[in-house]
């Protein structure tokens, strides 16, 4: 898959909405922020990380060459600010970029950061033995060379609008001198994995698995110390425990509040919620192929009209209100409203049970035996919907769908699966319908892979439902190849219209990011792709310090 796909998707990301807190002043140094997390970090060695629980910690400890701007622009280098790199020079043909590192950049063990580290990092990310999930985004990079100890040059195979972003976003630079000796396929077991050394404004302090993880300010950091003394992630295995920690003030940050908490928070002036559009969309995906024999069509869902009828039979507006109140919106195709590329005026399938029933009647699906379920030619209108049991909102939504489809004479069996089993069934195409979700992250994936023919035909493709439309593919290709935003938008609107009309899925909802914060925190601007991006510039209001803010850091600062 072309890495460009994602990059272009990402480049239309709109800026975050929501409140803009005052920027903290330099006098606000000190304090502790406690994050109540529902999952422990999956890894701390950057190329091994695949989940946001690990990313939010690693991105404090390690630096990128350059940091993406608040508007998340990915075309060229607009909005990017230097991090490890002081500056960069494009070659005249744009097939190479030379990054000039800051000479004062130091690893937390005191050694200088050099261009050799940058090249080593790239080698690590792209090594098949490391098997980094981020490798796909780096495919356009042919090689990295060391011009001098402070200059690393990236050489590209193709000139693409997002090549700068594709290089800087995934790479967190790691120290060569500490990792060189570790066998590449044994990184996870190395001492470094549990005691990482980076160059970020926070340094690693301690990790008590499944309990807590702590980073402390690197007080002599070349980019200035993190204002906070430390950030601690406290892990709870249970949603209730995690949220209780936040609600009771034991923690300052919780990243997935539910409507119940928002309601409760009205009585707690010490807590506030930061709402942002998210990069996630959830959908009920139909399988076009027979789950028992994927070379054959699915007995129900190969029929476009049937899919449309089912889509029209569910009142998504009411369902979203029921589960999320105002914390989510109805989905509008394989996009989210956070994408500038997405057209929010596109027409969605209406909620119209009369029309839905009329379509089913005209297709010959009738309830002849009066049992409340329609049948046609000996087959009943019945299917199984897979739901990951770990997602309470999807389970709730599925129960609502089940009842709404029952009203028009379709029977849905819910199959609540443990997460690993759920993914496995999707991957092997063994399902009728599944309640899936994709995150349009700035990562190596994209719409061709999830909904295009490419992703349907390749055995490892992510288009589990097997929706194939030449028209959709063509519009997507045009949108991604377009050089100006207006043209891209126009093409993409047609792609969106096509896929909504074809209804390969019921586009259920886009949740909003509901970041719960203690009002004693002064946050920097919060980026929609990563709320933690500005943590080093957060601070605690001097008047609202707690005992945990004053305690001396565990690790002596250097």
């Amino acid at each position, binding site marked *: 898959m072309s890495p460009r796909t994602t990059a272009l998707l990402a480049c239309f990301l709109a800026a975050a909405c929501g409140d803009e807190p005052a920027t903290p002043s330099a006098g606000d140094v000190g304090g502790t922020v406690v994050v109540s997390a529902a999952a422990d970090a999956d890894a701390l060695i950057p190329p091994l990380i695949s989940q946001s629980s690990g990313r939010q910690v690693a991105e404090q400890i390690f630096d990128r060459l350059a940091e993406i701007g608040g508007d998340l622009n990915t075309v060229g280098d607009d909005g990017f600010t230097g991090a490890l790199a002081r500056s960069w020079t494009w070659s005249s043909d744009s097939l190479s970029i030379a990054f000039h590192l800051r000479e004062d950049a130091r690893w937390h063990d005191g050694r200088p950061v050099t261009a050799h580290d940058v090249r080593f990092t790239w080698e690590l990310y792209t090594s098949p033995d490391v098997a980094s999930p981020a490798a796909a985004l780096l495919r356009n990079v042919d090689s990295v060379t060391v011009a001098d100890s402070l200059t690393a040059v990236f050489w590209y195979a193709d000139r693409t609008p997002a090549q700068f972003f594709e290089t800087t976003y995934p790479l967190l630079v790691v120290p060569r001198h500490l990792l060189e000796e570790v066998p590449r396929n044994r990184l996870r077991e190395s001492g470094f994995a549990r005691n990482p050394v980076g160059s970020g404004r926070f340094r690693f302090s301690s990790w008590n698995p499944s309990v807590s993880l702590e980073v402390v300010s690197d007080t002599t950091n070349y980019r200035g110390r993190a204002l906070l003394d430390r950030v601690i992630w406290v892990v709870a295995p249970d949603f209730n425990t995690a949220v209780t920690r936040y609600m009771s003030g034991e923690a300052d940050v919780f990243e997935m509040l539910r409507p119940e908490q928002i309601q409760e928070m009205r009585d707690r002036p010490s807590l506030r919620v930061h709402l942002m559009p998210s990069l996630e969309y959830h959908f009920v995906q139909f399988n076009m192929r027979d789950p028992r024999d994927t070379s054959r069509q699915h007995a129900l869902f190969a029929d476009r009209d049937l899919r449309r009828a089912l889509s029209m039979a569910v009142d998504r507006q009411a369902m979203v209100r029921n589960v999320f109140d105002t914390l989510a919106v109805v989905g509008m195709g394989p996009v989210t409203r956070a994408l500038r590329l997405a057209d929010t005026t596109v027409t969605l399938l209406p909620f119209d049970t009369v029309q839905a029933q009329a379509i089913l009647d005209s297709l010959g699906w009738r309830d002849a035996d009066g049992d409340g379920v329609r049948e046609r030619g000996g087959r009943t209108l019945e299917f199984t919907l897979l739901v990951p049991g770990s997602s309470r909102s999807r389970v709730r939504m599925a129960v609502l769908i089940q009842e709404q489809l029952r009203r028009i004479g379709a029977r849905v069996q819910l199959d609540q699966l443990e997460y690993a089993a759920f993914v496995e069934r999707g991957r092997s195409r063994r399902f009728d319908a599944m309640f899936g979700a994709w995150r349009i992250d700035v990562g190596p994936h994209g719409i061709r892979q999830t909904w295009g023919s490419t992703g349907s035909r390749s055995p490892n493709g992510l288009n589990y439902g097997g929706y194939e439309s030449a028209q959709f593919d063509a519009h997507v290709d045009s949108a991604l190849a377009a050089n100006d935003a207006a043209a891209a938008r126009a093409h993409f609107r047609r792609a969106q219209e096509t896929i909504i009309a074809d209804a390969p899925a019921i586009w259920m909802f886009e949740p909003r990011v509901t970041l719960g914060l203690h009002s004693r925190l002064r946050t920097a601007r919060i980026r929609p792709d990563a709320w933690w991006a500005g943590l080093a510039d957060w601070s605690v209001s001097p008047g609202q310090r707690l*005992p945990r803010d004053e305690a001396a850091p565990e690790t002596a600062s250097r």
Partner: protein
Amino acid sequence: MSARLALARSAQAVVVIFVVASLAFFLIRLAPGDPFTAALNDPGITEEVRTEWRRSYGLDAPLAEQYVRYLGAVVRGDFGWSFSMQRPVAEALRAAVPRTMLLAGTALLLSFAVGIGVALVQVRHPGSMTDRVLNRTTLLAYSVPEFWLALLLLFVFSLKLGVLPAGGAVDAVMHSRMNWMERVVDTIRHLVLPATTLTIVGAAVVARYQRGALLDVLPSDFIRTARAKGVAEPAIVRRHALRNALLPTITLLGLTIPALLAGSVFVEKIFAWPGMGLLAVNAVASRDYAMVTAVVVVAGTAVALGNLVADLLYAAADPRVRDG
């Protein structure tokens, strides 16, 4: 008690542990998917990446080979590498087992203390109002679903009243910066709710069992003799009946361990107590083979050893077993 008996019982325990280890290995492998299936909604992790991960952890070897390798490793006390926790399983266990021992041990001690105490009060005047009220109470207490009790306590004491922490074994932020006194207080504060949950149920079990055992021995010959000699009733209960009634309690000690371990699965999950129960729940969810098998083996070993100790104590204390 003969050394032969002790040896035979120990050999039995070893066999039990072997059976447990084998069961654990095969049960978890019945499951579809493996640790690398569960890489969230991230379409970026390709099948090639997963295959590479499987290869590097030896999950692509034939089952029989994995089994033999596993048994050898277990004998050496090496439980392998935990995918989900990014460290050797043995290391995770070293951190978790003491915490479960603290929780379960506290609950065990309190259960026996409270339970035997309640039973003693009850048999003073069997059939009296006190006895009946306590009997009802213990019946209620041991019928209450543990997870429900735990949730109730959590909501009342940490959320509504805010007097106790919501979870964890210690204050993750402040504990390492406290002096030893504060640390003890901090640990107790975190221990109160989970230990209370387990103790309420455990004490009820012990009380009911102990009451029955006491009532069984009270009518026996030597007590009748004591009574005939005019020994005061409380002294009879204390000196004669209790000593004999403690024999079955030894057995109870062995039987309580699995009950406590089972209870800690829910209690640790609800109170985020980072012990073995929590390890187990997390490991099952993330298909962490090595961790699940290790937890099952350790739990099984604890139970087998508990039974062994109970057996040996019983044999040492009871002449009928000792000589027979």
